[in-house]
């Protein structure tokens, strides 16, 4: 690749600037759509992953445990790698809680002479490691500890959540893959059609004695230029879009305010453009037969 090739590619671009501009815009739009899709799925993924955050177990304690026993138990539970936090809820706390939840019928509890509710630990689990199987295992371990009366956790609920998370992730990915393949194909087609008209030019170059790479290089450079510029355009458009999007909807919906626009897109979009432009041009030219 010489300076000549670069100049030749550039002059080609300039001579037909409108159609190349249109191709570049089209590439930008395609990649923009892709990045919007990507960010959407990415955020669904994050959101889904955060669902089990509030998942916790309630460990009911036997009555009459000593403060020592209690601390030992708390330590033992907290030491498990799944557990993020253990909070003690005393018998009184539990009654207060019940009283609150009976709002409007508090007088129900007025007749009580002693507090029948047990003290308990609320065990919060680490979000990332919440797995139905391992949670089941943990529950079994805790139940067998001294001082533990019973343990309650939403087994079914957990299973349900897990299932939803998986579905959201897998279907999101399927979705994204369809979107990606579609956009790739459309962008590729645009480059391919753009170069289809060049069959004559390629033929002439061949007849003049040009080798395959001499012919290809200017076209590949054109493809790469379209792709990279398109990718950069898509990047700018994406950031602008998400900025406006978050400004518009983020205020009323915290989930959107914290929406992640992965910075890997900074490099990925122009790279994707480069890849599409390059392979698009390469395939569009096809095998150069002499």
């Amino acid at each position, binding site marked *: 690749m010489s*300076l*000549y090739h670069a100049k*030749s590619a550039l*002059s*080609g671009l300039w*001579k*037909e600037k409108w159609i190349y501009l249109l191709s570049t815009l089209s590439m930008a739009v395609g990649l923009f759509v892709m990045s919007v899709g990507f960010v959407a799925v990415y955020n669904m993924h994050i959101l889904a992953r955060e669902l089990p955050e509030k998942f916790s177990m309630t460990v009911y304690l036997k009555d009459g445990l000593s403060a020592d026993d209690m601390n030992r138990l708390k330590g033992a539970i907290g030491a498990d790698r799944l557990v993020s936090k253990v909070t003690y809820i005393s018998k009184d706390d539990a009654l207060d809680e019940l009283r609150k939840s009976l709002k409007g019928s508090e007088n129900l509890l007025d007749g009580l002479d002693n507090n029948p509710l047990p003290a308990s630990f609320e065990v919060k689990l680490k979000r990332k490691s919440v797995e139905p199987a391992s949670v089941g295992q943990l529950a079994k371990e805790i139940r067998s500890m001294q001082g533990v009366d019973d343990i309650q956790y939403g087994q079914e609920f957990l299973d349900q959540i897990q299932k939803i998370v998986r579905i959201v992730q897998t279907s999101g990915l399927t979705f994204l893959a369809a979107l990606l393949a579609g956009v790739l194909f459309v962008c590729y087609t645009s480059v391919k059609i753009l170069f289809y008209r060049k069959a*004559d*030019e390629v*033929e*002439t*170059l*061949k*007849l*003049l*004695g*040009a*080798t395959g790479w*001499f012919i290809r290089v200017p076209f590949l450079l054109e493809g790469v230029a379209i792709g990279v510029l398109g990718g950069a355009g898509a990047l700018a458009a994406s950031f602008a879009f998400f900025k406006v999007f978050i400004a518009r909807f983020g205020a009323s919906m915290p989930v959107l305010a914290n929406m992640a626009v992965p910075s890997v897109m900074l490099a990925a979009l122009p790279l994707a453009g480069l890849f599409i432009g390059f392979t698009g041009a390469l395939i569009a030219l096809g095998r150069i*037969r*002499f």
Partner: protein
Amino acid sequence: MIRFENVSKIYDKHPALKGITFLAGKGEMLFITGPSGAGKSTLLKLIYHAVEPDEGTITIAGQGTSTIRAGQIPYLRRMIGVVFQDFRLLTRRTVFENTALALRIRGLGDQEIKNSVMETLKLVGLRHKSDVYPESLSGGEQQRVVIARALVAEPMLLLADEPTGNLDQDTSMEILRIFKDINARGTTVLIATHNTALYAGSSKRVLRLEEGALAREDLG
């Protein structure tokens, strides 16, 4: 330089050339004539490997064209300068770049290219049009760019297909003089033409094709 042995070319069942046999020696200048559709262009295309024969063998500079490896074809073609009947100018390049193409392909340096191209354009009277795109040239001017492109690399073999179809008598004779010059410097020249003025009185060999067959060989 060129050896055709019993060469035939059939397009979709229609024979364009039938059993052509002829020789052209190195440094020779030779004319091909014949009515429209007789097969002149096809004969030239066989030489620069744009089409392949259905029968017979063709040898160019000692190289059989049917046994050549695909990778060698560009190098075979670089020995040959072609004035295409349909011009084949690249619309996206200026006159200068169209002419320079023949040298770019051979990997020459910018300065050398500039000198050779400007000199050749001057030869065909188009120096002042070097920065113009082909679409704003007259028919005869376009034809002269094609001639310049075929000449600029000083090929071993020059094939000119109806090179004066769009040129007036004076310019035609000027072009013929250029062809004779390059021939005098050792290039084998093969001209397919209807223009009898090009070979009349030249005492060069003139092959006459008729309906794809070699009908007559004469001296012009």
